[in-house]
């Protein structure tokens, strides 16, 4: 059950390669107009090694990591009634196309109040050399399940 995970980290993800076309697709989906996110020449002219991932791009690999964890029936979390309470990103450096990153999901806190469960997850994202790239933190809320006995 979910409470048993509190204070623990899940095994780190396989390396995720930030794809150039994924950065373009994400930028277009959110309407990010900065050329450094879609035009390689513009990115390099601005001093970047490759396309710049938009500020919330890390959602593309942190949200699926969260889903894989919380949608597992064995974890005992009602995923169908879950809402996303808050989200933060702290960039230790810019995220670029071509980066290869590893995410470690930490289950930081679980609170129960008024029939709801409040779960704080933290995603530590590093490059394959172990250098920190970004930290994402998120609060998820769902209904406290009543387990049939």
């Amino acid at each position, binding site marked *: 059950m979910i409470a048993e995970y509190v204070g623990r980290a899940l095994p780190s993800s396989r390396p995720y390669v930030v794809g150039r076309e994924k950065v373009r697709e*994400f930028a277009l989906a*959110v*309407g990010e107009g900065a050329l450094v996110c879609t035009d390689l020449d513009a990115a390099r002219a601005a001093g970047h090694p490759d396309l710049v991932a938009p500020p919330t791009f890390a959602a593309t690999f942190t*949200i699926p990591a969260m889903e894989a964890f919380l949608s597992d029936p064995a974890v005992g979390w009602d995923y*169908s009634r879950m809402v*996303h309470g*808050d989200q933060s990103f702290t960039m230790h450096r810019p995220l670029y196309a071509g980066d290869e990153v590893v995410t470690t999901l930490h289950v930081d806190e679980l609170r129960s109040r008024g029939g709801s469960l409040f779960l704080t997850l933290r995603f530590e994202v590093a490059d394959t050399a172990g250098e920190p790239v970004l930290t994402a933190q998120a609060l998820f809320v769902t209904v406290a399940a009543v387990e049939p006995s």
Partner: protein
Amino acid sequence: MTTAGPVDAAPGDTLPPLVVRMTRLDLVKYAGASGDFNPIHWSERFAVGVGLPNVIAHGMLTMALAGRLVTAWIGDPAAVVGYSARFTRPVVVPDDDAGVELELTGTVKAVDAEGDGARIATVAITAAVAGKTVLGRAVARVRLPV
């Protein structure tokens, strides 16, 4: 007072406002681009079944769109060193061509010097649909150009 640009940013400056339209198509595009296929963001049947009034936007899409207020101001998204928000009100997106309009405004709350000589602006963002705020405590921290 709206700033001419971020170079001379000072507390109290307001960012150029932005209005962004969100339709069902944008939710589908975001689902594909982000890998978040939760059906509350594309299936009315499922959304209503779990007690929502209708399909709602991904909180992360609303947050990404609101971030454009700041990236449009600063110019380079790589300058954003921190971004956080609370999802305080679901954004219901109707199944029509008009969708909803997200109204974005922002104010520089602080400008702080870092140890390396960089200056970091803290920008508070407000995001509203039909006059009601949908994000709480939305704050971006941005490295200012030197």
